């Protein structure tokens, strides 16, 4: 068994995550499905309980004390997000349900206002369905064309081909920062710069990158950046869309109703200022408080240390899995996050998943909502172990033993 990292005390960190301390099917839980959703530290759970125990009220509406407290917390969490991804202004951050809603918001507002017949939207061959379908629907509606940047056998973006796809008709580039199915980290500054040289804005799907690396949207230069709270150790149902103020100002509203208005008569409605223009209805206040707490937790741990430790885990895991006969890692990009997607001879990933589960090991199996990625590699599905900073090398050893058991069953 490997010695654990010297970077930080993983055992101590694991104590912050109550869900990890249980047996599943008679074996200690080994949770390796972090790309699907992450576990929550006690701090986040306490923040939710505390919010509902002591402050629950609606925001931006009441003159009473609880309403003010809830509003303060809701907006304080927004400021935490701003600092966390280094946006310039709080009002450039719009709360959404998650990455999917964030992308849909941009497609339905910016997209509908700016994409017309014959225009083009560029995505890549490694996108999650949530960064394919909204653009497909938009392009169909508008008579526009969806262009796809191809990838190589390692799962890396073909930047040359991307350059040739950019044209005078390109209205938007929407691209994933870190692939959920392959782990590839895309060269964002280059991708963005090439688009900007032609005056094309870029949306970055940060669902898989935000939990694992330092994000600076201003340095990156993106125009939109979207992520989900639940993959960042926060609650489900809360996420963030960052957009440059200038773009958000010009966009029509997404949903309409309360909160997003300045004044309403039966003849006319004036919309509220940013970011409230995009936050119709009572928002997920508790979710924002939980997200703020998750950011506090990550900040205290230090994203630099998290990133370094996860690299160490990924190297250890890649090495251990590649030694297994018949196992093939899908996604071998040079720049890669903590994703170990693999096939195992002709054993179907669902059978791998069930046998691992019987040993308490949770992984994801299937197409990972990225069917075009599976098609690109000519496979129906993969088994995927995805890492977080609370995982250990000992857990990777358990995964390897688990895979040995799969091979034994199918021998």
């Amino acid at each position, binding site marked *: 068994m490997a010695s654990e990292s010297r970077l930080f005390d993983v055992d101590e960190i694991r104590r912050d995550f109550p869900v990890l301390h249980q047996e599943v099917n008679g074996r200690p839980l080994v949770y390796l499905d972090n790309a699907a959703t992450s576990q929550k530290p006690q701090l986040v759970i306490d923040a939710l309980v505390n919010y509902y125990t002591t402050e629950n009220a609606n925001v931006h509406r009441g003159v009473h004390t609880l309403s003010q407290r809830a509003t303060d917390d809701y907006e304080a969490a927004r400021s935490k997000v701003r600092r966390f991804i280094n946006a310039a202004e709080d009002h450039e951050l719009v709360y959404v349900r998650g990455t999917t809603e964030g992308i849909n918001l941009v497609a339905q507002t910016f997209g509908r206002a700016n994409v017309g017949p014959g225009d083009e939207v560029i995505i890549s061959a490694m996108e999650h369905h949530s960064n394919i379908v909204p653009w497909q629907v938009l392009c169909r509606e508008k008579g526009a064309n969806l262009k796809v940047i191809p990838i190589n056998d390692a799962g890396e973006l073909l930047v040359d081909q991307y350059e040739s796809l950019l044209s005078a008709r390109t209205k938007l580039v929407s691209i994933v920062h870190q692939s959920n199915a392959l782990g590839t980290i895309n060269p964002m500054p280059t991708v963005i710069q090439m688009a900007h040289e032609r005056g094309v804005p870029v949306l970055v799907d940060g669902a898989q990158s935000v939990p694992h690396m330092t994000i600076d949207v201003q340095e990156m230069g993106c125009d939109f950046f979207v992520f989900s709270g639940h993959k960042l150790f926060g609650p489900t149902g809360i996420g963030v869309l960052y957009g440059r103020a200038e773009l958000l100002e010009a966009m029509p509203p997404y949903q309409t109703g309360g909160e997003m208005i300045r004044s309403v008569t039966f003849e006319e409605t004036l919309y509220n200022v940013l970011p409230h223009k995009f936050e119709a209805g009572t928002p997920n206040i508790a979710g924002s408080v939980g997200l703020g707490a998750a950011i506090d937790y990550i900040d205290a741990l230090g994203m630099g240390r998290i990133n370094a430790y996860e690299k160490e885990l990924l190297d250890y895991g890649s090495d251990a899995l590649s030694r297994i006969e018949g196992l093939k890692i899908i996604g071998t990009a040079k720049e890669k996050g903590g994703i170990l997607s693999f096939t195992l001879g002709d054993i179907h990933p669902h059978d791998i998943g*069930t046998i691992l589960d019987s040993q308490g090991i949770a992984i994801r199996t299937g197409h990972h909502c990225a069917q075009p990625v599976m098609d690109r590699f000519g496979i*129906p599905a993969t088994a995927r172990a995805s890492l977080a900073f609370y995982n250990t090398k000992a857990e990777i050893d358990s995964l390897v033993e688990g895979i040995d058991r799969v091979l034994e069953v*199918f021998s």
Partner: protein
Amino acid sequence: MSDLSDLYQEILLEHNSKPRNFRKLEDATVHCEGFNPLCGDHYTLYLKLADGVISDTGFQGAGCAISKASASMLTQRVKGMTVEDAEQLFDHFHRMLTQPGAEVDYDFLDDLEMLSGVADYPTRIKCAILIWHALHSALEGGADAVTTE
């Protein structure tokens, strides 16, 4: 959860590695697709029907061991059966996996009872049952069934 060996029995693994009737049936009178978009299991079931009897069967496609073994066993079992009996078989198989405690004729199911362990794995029931829905649809002339008569 039951023991893993109740699920991955020898006979299931054998059907998976050497599926029976694993071919496109050229003279099929009806074929039907079974597709699970969530997991990607995808099969086509071919039946040759004559005078209310399933005279020949075949299937093609890809999926997990459970879905493939279930398909292989189905094609073996319904070959030579009347359409009526095959529908009965579908009912009993369906009940065995989806309605715990329901009345099931295990004598009639015979070797298909081997798949009863799947009921303990809720996420895998759809794998075992996929091809059976294709059968049901083919016999009923359902929306996904393609008649080639």
